[in-house]
């Protein structure tokens, strides 16, 4: 093999012809995998288009969500140093001058998203506050020297884009200068003086108003910095603060307390800390889902299981939006890769156009869709025949079905949001607090069959008027904002309900009046009569209770909501052609995103039949046939042992099993040689188990190995 050697471990392969040779376009990989499947090029293009749209949409969302945080940060940064420079004679300012303004930015545990947030923060700061923004990571700064080195080199880089002429001299400096805070502040002085006249020309409007823009240092992962480096740096830079206006931003994943745990009081007193909190990642997820999936903007949809898996990875594993998006990308890719009809997964006019050009093969694919077959079965027999025989008719029908599907989605999301308005504030949240939970339930099955839905209706029947009205108001706004024609009626209905509720107000007042007057009439009686009449009144009220107008109206509202749900929130798999838009292969997604290597290993070792479909390997649970691969037998035997394993016993046992298996084979070789071979096989199996990490050599006892797992058998 070209890649095995006893003297080196890396092998470079560089094709000797010109490497700029036209590389194979990616689309080729897309279609070759599925041997010449339909429309692969088109599908790949659609994939890329949708993915680009989704990606830019998420980026936009991210920006939007961070806007508040960034605004307040920018404000903080702008004010923190500007005061100092104006009246530095003031005594209090003298003290303040020793304190480094610090923003503690609590970013949450989703470490993977921090990079993106901080990158956009850097951008914002560079545009609005100062060109000198440096971000450092703990892994780059094991000690003070590296810390300063990184800081200086990045600062120089910042400057380079202001004046690229000096690039060469900068690089000379980088190599020779012994990094110190002194040199840094000297550099800063020279730079600010030099660039000052140039600043206005550069159109850095906000930064040019100060003669000296501050230097912002972002510590991306504050928790992982060495305490000593941080302490030293803070003490030193606070000494230089008057000539080197530094501002720190700590990126914190856990809680702000960590600052005080890392820094002793003497050091933290040199900081003037202000706390900033980023948006929680759950809210972020909600927004992303809202804008990417609960919308008709993107035709691509996830089935219930897929969505469930993605949210579960998010909630139980990492809280990472990035990973969620990655999962989304993968499902999009898988959908377009594996479903030939995904070519119809685009906006409606385009899809209609594409239907006209579908090949005969693709028409066959449509006919094979389970949802389409179900649809056909419901049609009259003549129509069935034409649908199955005439491609032209089929295409027309597909067009109208696809249109229906789009309309269905439009209504679906409106009604879903409306239902969410009603359910999100109920006690105990029977249908979930977040809209994604509700969405999942609705995707899974007809929601009105569930117990939770029944209890929701029950709870709605107990709502007070103001709550109900608030919900209706919200729904009204929802329906009004949408341009849909079909649900225009609904908005009107809601408006009517609202009006009726308002008119109720006047009536109830009258009622109250009458009841008050009644109670007045009772005043001058004795105790016995009073009790009696009170009892009577109570009975009267309980019987008349059903008749109050409010309750009748409430009942109407509830049944109205119910009818909406039943009409529009049909699960998507009832819709013909839903397979073109919905990605449902949850199993693939799980396998690639959240794999379980340990399980795979165990299965392969414990139940080889699962992989090697040979009848000889078929066995009952907890037992393994003796013809199984060597490593499986060795593994099975080692499961019997506790912490330590005697190699001799193990090898004897192994030999016993293997010989028994061989007896059935030809008895050709001599027994001595056979034993040798069996021993060699044992050695191989053991060293493979060692490589896999099940055992390791131990010195506790001669010729023993330690088992690294426990349990088993």
């Amino acid at each position, binding site marked *: 093999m070209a890649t095995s050697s006893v003297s080196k471990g890396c092998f470079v*392969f560089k094709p000797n012809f010109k490497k700029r040779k036209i590389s194979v376009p990616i689309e080729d990989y897309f279609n070759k*995998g599925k041997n010449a499947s339909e429309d692969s090029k088109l599908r790949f293009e659609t994939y890329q288009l949708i993915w680009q749209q989704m990606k830019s949409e998420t980026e936009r969302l991210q920006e939007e969500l961070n806007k508040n945080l960034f605004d307040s940060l920018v404000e903080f940064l702008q004010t923190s140093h500007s005061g100092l420079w104006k009246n530095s004679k003031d005594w209090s300012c003298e003290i303040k001058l020793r304190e480094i303004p610090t923003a503690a930015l609590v970013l949450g545990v989703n470490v993977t998203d921090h990079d993106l947030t901080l990158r956009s923060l850097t951008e914002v700061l560079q545009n609005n506050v100062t060109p000198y923004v440096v971000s450092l990571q703990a892994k780059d700064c094991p000690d003070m020297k590296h810390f300063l080195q990184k800081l200086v080199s990045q600062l120089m880089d910042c400057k380079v884009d202001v004046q690229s002429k000096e690039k060469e001299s900068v690089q000379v400096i980088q190599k020779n200068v012994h990094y110190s805070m002194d040199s840094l502040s000297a550099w800063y002085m020279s730079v600010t003086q030099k660039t000052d006249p140039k600043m206005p020309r550069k159109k850095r409007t906000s930064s040019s108003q100060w003669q000296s823009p501050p230097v912002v240092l972002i510590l991306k992962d504050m928790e992982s910095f060495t305490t000593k480096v941080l302490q030293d740096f803070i003490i030193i830079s606070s000494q230089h603060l008057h000539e080197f206006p530094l501002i720190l931003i700590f990126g914190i994943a856990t809680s702000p307390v960590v600052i005080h745990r890392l820094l002793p009081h003497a050091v933290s007193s040199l900081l003037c800390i202000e706390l900033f909190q980023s948006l929680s990642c759950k809210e972020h997820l909600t927004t992303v889902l809202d804008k990417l999936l609960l919308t008709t903007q993107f035709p691509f949809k996830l089935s219930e*299981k897929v969505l469930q898996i993605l949210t579960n990875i998010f909630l139980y594993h990492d809280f990472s939006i990035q990973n969620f998006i990655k999962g989304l990308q993968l499902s999009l890719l898988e959908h377009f890769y594996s479903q030939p009809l995904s070519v119809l997964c685009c906006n409606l006019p385009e899809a209609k156009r594409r239907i006209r050009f579908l090949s005969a093969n693709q028409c066959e694919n449509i006919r094979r869709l389970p949802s389409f077959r179900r649809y056909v079965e419901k049609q009259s027999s003549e129509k069935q025949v034409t649908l199955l025989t005439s491609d032209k008719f089929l295409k027309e029908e597909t067009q109208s079905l696809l249109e229906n599907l789009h309309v269905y989605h439009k209504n679906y999301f409106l009604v879903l949001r409306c239902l969410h308005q009603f359910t999100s504030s109920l006690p105990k949240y029977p249908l979930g607090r977040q809209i994604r939970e509700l969405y999942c339930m609705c995707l899974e099955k007809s929601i009105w069959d569930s117990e939770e839905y029944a209890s929701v209706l029950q709870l709605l029947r107990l709502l007070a008027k103001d709550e109900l009205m608030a919900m209706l108001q919200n729904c009204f706004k929802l329906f009004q904002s949408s341009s849909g024609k079909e649900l225009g009626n609904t908005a009107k209905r809601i408006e009517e309900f609202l009006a009726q509720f308002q008119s109720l107000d006047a009536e109830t007042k009258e009622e109250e009046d009458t009841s008050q007057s009644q109670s007045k009439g009772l005043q001058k009686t004795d105790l016995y009569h009073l009790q009696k009449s009170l009892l009577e009144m109570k009975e009267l009220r309980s019987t008349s209770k059903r008749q109050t107008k409010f309750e009748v109206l409430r009942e109407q509202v509830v049944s109205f909501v119910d009818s909406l749900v039943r009409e529009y929130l049909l699960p998507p798999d009832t819709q013909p052609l839903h397979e073109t838009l919905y990605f449902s292969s949850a199993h693939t997604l799980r396998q690639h995103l959240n794999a379980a*290597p340990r399980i795979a290993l165990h299965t392969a070792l414990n139940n080889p039949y699962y992989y090697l479909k040979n009848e000889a390997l078929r066995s009952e649970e907890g037992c393994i046939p003796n013809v199984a691969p060597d490593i499986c037998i060795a593994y099975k035997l080692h499961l019997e042992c506790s912490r330590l394993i005697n190699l001799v016993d193990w090898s004897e046992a192994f030999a016993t099993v293997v010989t028994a298996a061989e007896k059935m084979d030809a008895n050709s070789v001599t027994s001595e040689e056979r034993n040798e071979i069996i021993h060699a096989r044992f050695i191989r199996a053991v060293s493979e188990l060692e490589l896999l990490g099940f055992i390791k050599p131990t010195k506790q006892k001669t*010729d023993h190995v330690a088992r690294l797992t426990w349990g088993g*058998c």
Partner: protein
Amino acid sequence: MAKLASELAKTPRKSVLLNMKNDPKITIDIPQCSKGHSSSDKSQLKNNDKSEFLSTAPRGLRKRLIVPRSHSDSESEYSASNSEDDEGVAQEYEEDTNEDILSQKIQAQNREVSAPVFRETPSKKMKREKTSHLVEKYFEAHSSSKVLTSDRTLQKLKRAKLDQQTLHNLLSKVSPSFSAELKQLNQQHEQLFHKWMLQLHLGFNIVLYGLGSKRDLLERFRTTMLQDCIHIVINGFFPGISVKSVLNSVTEVLDHVGTFRSVLDQLEWITNKFKEDSSLELFLLIHNLDSQMLRGDKSQQIIGQLSSLRNIYLIASIDHLNAPLMWDHAKQSLYNWLWYETTTYSHYTEETSYENSLLVKQSGSLPLSSLIHVLRSLTPNARGIFRLLIKYQLDNQDNPSYIGLCFQDFYQQCREAFLVNSDLTLRAQLTEFRDHKLIRTKKGTDGVEYLLIPVDNGILTDFLENEEEEL
């Protein structure tokens, strides 16, 4: 173990285990198989086993009577719902990596077409039971400091350690089994090559896991798909590999001359280079990303950063049971993995060949012959000194905290045996030993030098016997 072995041996195709399990009075019978041994050897072996099992049998039996029972119960509970489609697969997500084997198996078995159905409540209940069960097992295994195993050693077995070459020769005589199935398995994996290329180009990186060497598979991937691309193959299992050498080969591709001050500098240079030139494409194939040399935090960080570059495509394989623990969330997002299960059942021939295996003779340590050879060339006094040290070490061989003989004590002993007259002469002798790698010195916690012979005790015993014979 012997018992299980005999059971396995007796049950070639069907399981008799269940019947056997219910009969607690199974006698230990090793089939007449070990013809290679002399009969006395065999009987001794038997006795040994018996005595051992008398002590451990009650526990072992109990365990096997109970455990498989609950096992099969739970299995049936799940398999009943197996036939339905894959609903609620997601429920299993709450389960952590420290997963119980039972559920692992169930999950894995159902992976193929029908994913398992986990109803909410039973699965939760099951899980609690399972975890407690698992915890118990851990403490069962680690409760007593004494572990009952037999005292037999390979030395007594009279089976010499094989060296790499003979091992290889012996193994080549074994005819491979299930080749048809293995071939089919491999073909399944090969069908994924195009998909891998696609996904690599779209910004994912690919990691392969599963039992069996994935070297051949990756090699085939390389030869079929990557012939026209620049690519680097890295053998993670190679004992001399380091991140530095990985980076060096990347810079070699980029035609860099000169050196870098640090690995981080080099990484930065590479990063810039790749960011500047978007037409540059590089495939990295890493066999055994989880190998001893690459599994360190820093190495993984650097490789992760490399792989996060847009035009570097990484496809790697992992084998170790706990390999995924190498990566925290930050690293995982750098790698951007897509996991692919590629169980091949191929032997890890190349991976285990770098003389780190348990039973293979290690040429790095001193075999008996060279020991004798070196000692013969020394003066009688020097030989005496060395013998003293050997005896002392053999006397202490059962002491697990033995770290060596303290220099002062050694000197004292040598003086008493009239072997040296000053500690300078002793030191001169020791230097000679050290040059021949016969001893190793180590500073103890108290700052005193300790001397140790880095040779297996068995060899030392042989050596002493040999010496005595000569005398």
